[in-house]
């Protein structure tokens, strides 16, 4: 009896001890690694500084604020690794060929629309778990990452090279701005964004002229998968449509206000919530095409589907998933806009 009580006491004591120690362990090394990080970035600066003495402008140190803090970058980075699709796209748009990119979500390993520009660029793994050793091997001088995807490895990435992060992966304008600053191409970035704004204004004016009273129209971005359907309420395509002046059903507005990006529908009874004047539809998962096609047919043959405004008006368009959803970049935004011009038969 005495013995087991003693045993319990020892157990309790040891557990508490473990908690305390692991608490210390959690905080201490972090400080150390932060220091290391600073030292490391300091080292990079002096290296870059001595290498680029010729042009004094090149030596300018820029401090960039981003989703995970501030990062110092000296001069114009030459070896950039992009760790999410949108960043890869924007790099190409800014006229920079990255030295390393992550695998695309479809059309593996690189999206068709970027293939020509990214010929021969090595992959560093998947966007969700990029291979740190591969990245280190490329000896980059700038890494573009996403807080959403790479928060856990930000510390290691920063030890490889100065790393700047975007909050999510789909706000392409933020990506353009961030990368413009980081790559020392702010003028180009501003130009890109201005070019976009001009086209948006043009589109708005032309579609309003064409549709007259009908404008603005309600759109829904719909997606069919093997086992469910989705409404993209906001997100990449949703944000762009919003900017172009399209509106959404009341239901979708409510969801957007709540911060919802995607509404997942598993029951055909919720088909009415898809309602809108125009549907943009894409089918996902090329690895399971049959199942996706089956879902699509089942849902679109349902009586409720026939009662939707867009279906009645024959305004259901199939769109390109890469451009509308997976690309998440600047070039893909333009391609999406091109497709919209075509759909509504507007003059470009």
């Amino acid at each position, binding site marked *: 009896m005495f013995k087991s009580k003693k045993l319990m006491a020892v157990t309790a004591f040891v557990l508490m001890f473990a908690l305390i120690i*692991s608490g210390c*362990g959690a905080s*201490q090394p972090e400080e150390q690694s932060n220091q290391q990080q600073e030292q490391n970035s300091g080292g990079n600066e002096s290296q870059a500084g001595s290498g680029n003495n010729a042009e004094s402008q090149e030596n300018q140190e820029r401090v960039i604020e981003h989703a995970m803090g501030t990062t110092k970058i000296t001069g114009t980075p030459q070896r950039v690794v992009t760790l999410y699709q949108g960043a890869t796209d924007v790099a190409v748009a800014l006229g920079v060929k990255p030295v390393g990119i992550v695998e695309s979500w479809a059309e593996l390993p690189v999206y068709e629309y970027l293939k020509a520009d990214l010929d021969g660029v090595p992959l*560093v793994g998947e966007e969700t*778990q990029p291979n740190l050793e591969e990245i280190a091997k490329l000896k980059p001088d700038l890494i573009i990452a996403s807080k959403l995807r790479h928060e856990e*490895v930000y510390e290691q990435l920063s030890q490889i090279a100065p790393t700047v992060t975007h909050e999510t992966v789909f706000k392409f304008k933020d990506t353009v701005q961030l990368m413009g600053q980081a790559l020392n191409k702010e003028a180009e970035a501003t130009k890109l964004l201005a070019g976009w704004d001009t086209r948006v204004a043009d589109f708005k004016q032309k579609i309003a002229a064409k549709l007259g009273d009908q404008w603005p129209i309600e759109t829904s971005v719909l997606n069919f998968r093997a086992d469910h359907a989705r409404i993209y309420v906001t997100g990449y395509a949703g944000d762009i449509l919003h900017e172009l002046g399209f509106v959404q059903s009341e239901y979708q507005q409510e969801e957007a206000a709540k911060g919802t990006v995607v509404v997942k529908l598993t029951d055909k009874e919720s088909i009415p919530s898809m309602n809108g004047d125009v549907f943009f539809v894409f089918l996902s998962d090329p690895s399971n095409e049959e199942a996706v096609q089956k879902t699509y047919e089942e849902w679109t043959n349902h009586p409720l589907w026939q009662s939707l405004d867009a279906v009645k008006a024959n305004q259901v368009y199939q769109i390109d998933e890469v451009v509308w959803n997976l690309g998440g970049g600047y070039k893909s935004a333009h391609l999406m806009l091109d497709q919209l011009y075509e759909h509504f038969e507007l003059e470009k």
Partner: protein
Amino acid sequence: MSNDIQHKHFTRSEMVSELLRKKALTVIFTLILLSAILFIAGLSAGSTVLNPLDVVKHLTGAGSGEHNFVIHTLRLPRMLLAMLAGAALGVAGLIMQGVVRNPLGSPDIIGVTGGASFAAVFFLTRLAGSVSIKWLPIAAIVGAAAVSALIYALAWRKGVTPVRLVLVGIGLSACTGALTTMMIVLNDEYSTTRAYLWMTGSVYGAKWSDVYSLLPWVALLVPLSLLFAKSANVLETGDETAAGLGVRIQLHRIGMLTISVALAGAAVAFAGGIGFVGLIAPHIARKLVGRAFGYLVPVSALIGSMMVALADVVARTAFLPLDIPAGVFVSGIGAPFFIYLLYRSRHQ
């Protein structure tokens, strides 16, 4: 004459235990040797293959420092974290199987993985972005502890019997599983990708701070579990027998459960939902050294650590440049080996 027989009998049982001891020590020694080989091989393998001799030099401090970043910052903490997590899960599973007297027992049964998954997915889908990711392990371990305590409390009826514990555990695991799925379904794909990744289990992006945080749990609790060796051996024979032999069943049971939950919870907090190890490592250990708890603890720890470490080495080297979550390979490595052991023992 009678004296003689008794004497003979005594030496024989002594001989048997001496033989067992020798066999167990041989097994343990072999496993340590294999672990060491795996350790060096794992540190050498990667997208840059290093000479094992250079790795040994680095470890002993005689290295050139050339591969400092790859070995010290990337591979070493990852390897150590995998080994620690595997060892913790192996021992946690062993204890749990002893407590519930069921060969299918594993830390999952008392809700560790379920609770940790629920908390981690909640964190990733609701709090990530606003709360730093470094709190994720704490969230996971709190979830594990809370659900385990709840299961224990609900199973209590003048003490806890293994059968009630298993039944309540399975019930609550289903509940937490349902809640976790619900959270995933209700969230957008960006955060659910992370949630799935976590649930698969991965030691990707391991840092030294993670190693320091997990180390005290393993270093203190695994030896502590040995203190329960005697009662564990007796408890396995059944409550009545154990009580008859003077073991304070409830006290020992809760002590062992606490150790098991703490070990598994800590491992899962840092390595995610690598659940299978806790189930299979103790079985492999039993095939190797029999049923004596004192030997089973180190052997389960070694087997568990080798399983996770090997899985991670394969995961990060087999499909270069892709870096795949280790959880994908854990069952792929453990199950065939276990089946081989079963097959061999049947044909002996």
